[in-house]
């Protein structure tokens, strides 16, 4: 029983989706997989989903690299399946079924996302869909009802015929070859052309009355292959518009790698541009001797109340920020351009910039002003764990009122952070360093940290921003000073 190679073609994972992106492979060539074992993560316009293997066998080939956008029906993985048709009898069925679906669909299939309404195209998600070649689409547009008036419409390929402008609609003697919206062919041949990426308007039909035959399409493909389009025999629009599809395999000689702008990167970019060019940013710096705070942290570690939680400098800064914010509420407001109003928040949803597997995210701690140091530490732990697991929910990401970015963990001292859109301030905390510092009129080795505060100058004047930053500095320098503030 010789092993048989079975191809798995990308199915339509939603209802009417035309393509999906391979996010990651969970298997490599040579791996033995079981039926229904998860082999890949695939992202459609709707969701990231896991692909279960349709066969039990050995992975023979991965056709596409992670990051590639693949058209529905294209082979993505091949398996060596022992002894012919064990179980998964219809390997071709998988592909064939989708191919048949293709046939039944109108020429241009736009995903109509069930449950999300039809207008999703206008949202930013599907914008990353690869461009589709327009010409075959035009060629495939179903001909409108053949009204006499249409007979005069010029058509590029079909040989010119005397137009019959005023023939009655049901006149039986209208010549069969009357000009139409698309070249003469049959559905199977049109499908073949679509699969091969051949524009039928560019093909000369050699069949009866100019009918484009299967042979004509194959000949046209031959011609196109000679003309250029290296390698990929399957010159789909994707292959052309996604040159960065396979960065990992880029040849040694290549001097640049081009990666499509999409996903979280794209959202981050849009948010940063919107923020940087909407809110006039001012950034102030303050370097503080935080030795006392560090000593406090060390003491808390031995305290029973904090035994099972790690209190970090971030938790301390978060608490200091909340206290300072209560005294300087302007920093906790929002500019509502549409309403021409300033919105003063009476709650603090504290955003924490987090590097996650999916990129930068700023989930926020709801009602952080109600939390004590212990509560904040717990909330920070939950938030970072959720973010690292990639499970941050949309609700966690929305509704922030002010943010902290901890660049100190990267060994950085200071920066000019850009505001999370809609917020009035963002605090960057630098790393804690031992530095020669003035202490009791002497030079001593002290632990210092630089705080960088950016604020929206439309909402916050220099005075308010400075007082806020100074308050945080005071608390970190001498935690006991909190007694004078609350």
């Amino acid at each position, binding site marked *: 029983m010789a092993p048989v190679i079975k191809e*798995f*073609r*990308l*199915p*339509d*994972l*939603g*209802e009417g*989706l035309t393509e999906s992106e391979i996010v990651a492979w969970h298997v490599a060539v040579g791996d033995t997989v079981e039926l*229904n074992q998860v082999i890949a993560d695939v992202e459609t316009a*709707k*969701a*990231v*989903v*896991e*692909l*279960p*293997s*349709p066969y039990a066998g050995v992975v023979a080939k991965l056709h596409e690299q992670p990051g590639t956008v693949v058209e529905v029906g294209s082979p993505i993985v091949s398996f060596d399946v022992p002894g012919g048709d064990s*179980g*998964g*009898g*219809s390997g071709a*069925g*998988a*592909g064939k*079924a*989708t191919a*048949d*679906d293709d046939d039944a669909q109108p020429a241009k299939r736009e995903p109509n*996302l*069930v*449950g*999300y309404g039809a207008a999703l195209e206008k949202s930013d998600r599907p914008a990353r869909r690869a461009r589709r070649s327009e010409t075959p689409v035009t060629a495939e547009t179903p*001909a409108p009802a*053949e009204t006499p008036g249409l007979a005069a419409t010029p058509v590029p390929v079909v040989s010119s015929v005397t137009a019959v402008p005023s023939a009655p609609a049901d006149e039986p003697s209208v010549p*069969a070859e009357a000009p139409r919206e698309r070249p003469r062919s*049959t*559905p*199977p041949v049109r499908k073949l052309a679509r699969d091969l990426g051949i524009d039928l308007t560019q093909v000369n039909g050699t*069949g*009866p009355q100019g*009918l484009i*035959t299967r042979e004509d399409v194959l000949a046209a493909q031959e011609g196109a292959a000679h003309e250029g389009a290296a390698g990929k025999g399957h010159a789909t629009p994707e292959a052309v518009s996604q040159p960065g599809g396979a960065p990992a395999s880029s040849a040694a000689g290549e001097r640049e790698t081009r990666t499509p702008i999409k996903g979280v990167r794209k959202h981050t970019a849009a948010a940063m541009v919107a923020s940087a060019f909407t809110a006039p940013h001012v950034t102030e710096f303050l370097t503080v001797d935080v030795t006392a705070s560090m000593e406090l942290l060390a003491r808390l570690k031995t305290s029973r109340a904090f035994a099972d939680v790690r209190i970090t400098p971030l938790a301390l800064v978060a608490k200091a920020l909340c206290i300072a914010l209560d005294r300087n509420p302007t920093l906790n407001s929002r500019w509502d351009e549409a309403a021409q109003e300033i919105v003063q928040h009476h709650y603090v949803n504290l955003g924490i910039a987090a590097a996650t597997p999916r990129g930068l995210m700023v989930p926020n701690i709801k009602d952080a002003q109600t939390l004590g140091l212990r509560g904040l530490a717990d909330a920070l732990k939950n938030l970072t764990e*959720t973010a690292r697991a990639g*499970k941050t*929910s*949309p*609700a966690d990401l929305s509704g922030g009122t002010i943010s902290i970015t901890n660049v100190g963990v990267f060994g950085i001292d200071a920066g000019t952070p850009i505001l999370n859109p809609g917020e009035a301030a963002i605090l960057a905390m630098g790393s804690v360093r031992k530095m020669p510092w003035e202490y009791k009129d002497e030079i001593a080795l002290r632990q210092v940290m630089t705080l960088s505060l950016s604020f929206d100058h439309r909402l916050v004047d220099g005075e308010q921003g400075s007082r806020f930053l100074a308050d945080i500095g005071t608390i970190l320098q001498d935690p006991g000073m909190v007694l004078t503030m609350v």
Partner: protein
Amino acid sequence: MLLNNEADAAQDELVQLIAPNGERRHHPVYDRWVADVDGEALQALYRDMVVIRRIDAEATALQRQGELALWPPFLGQEAAQIGSARALREDDFVFSSYRESGVAYCRGVDLTDLMRVWRGNASAGWDPFAINMAPTQVIIGAQTLHATGYAMGILHDGADSVAVTYFGDGATSQGDVNEAMVFAASYQAPVIFFCQNNQWAISEPVRLQAHVPIARRAPGFGIPSVRVDGNDVLACLAVTREALDRARTGGGPTFIEAVTYRMGPHTTADDPTRYRDANELEDWAAKDPIARLAGLLDAEGLLPAEVSDSVQASADDVAARLREGCISMPEPAAQDVFKHVYSEPNSWLERQQDQYERYLASFESPVSDSSEEASR
């Protein structure tokens, strides 16, 4: 006693016979409805739930493999479906939505027939009168009217069978469901409205459309209602038996709100992480219907290895047969589309079929493709 004839918050309490930790809870009203359920019967319920969960997993995989066009998972709702469906008699008639594949399994549907619609091979998968269950209804809530009409027919026949209709929390906001309840109450029709409140109407949380428990709506129509822990198979069995008994003895309709949770997406084309919190999922995972029955069985020594192995083998066998039936299903013939439009011959349809056949025939000889033109 626990029926919400009066809208009373105290009566919003869930009927529960098995706690999430598997402990058997005693109930003054509902214990007697499951007094006959012995160890063997509990094991059978367990087997049913494990098997239908496996059906759900296999069908989901088949969709991801391109073998099904779509699949609406019922993961998490096994107890509501098994508990209610196993209470039914053969001559009762089920009118369900598209998510009640577990109920269809209990009615004895052929596994391949269960896949037919979702593979896109047929408009309806099975003969409704062979298993006394109407075809899958995709129009939200429409089946409640069909059930009520059928139940009115039962009245005219003088029979003591019952129509049972399944729908979700979202459907209760549909006009159809409300109209059905008006008719059911007016005629005192023997119909059970079994609402699986799985908390989400696609992306809409139930609290947006129901500020009080859904079960409280029914008394407004004059229909007694009960809220049951939808993840407790025994409680679902008990409340359904009570409602069946009421219907069979001329007591009219009952509304059951089974409070459960859709652990998976709305359909395989949905991404619930876009609209709901991962924590919520974890909370409900702790109330898993199968785990809690396993807990009870285990505590009573009713789940030895040979039983759980045999249950697992049943599930594997069902999954294998389901897969085989699905992937080896013959493609439907193009003309099949005309088959079930009318029950009797129709000249207009025959004309269309004739034209369509000539159109299809034209592909065999492209020279004479004038029929293609004619039919366009």
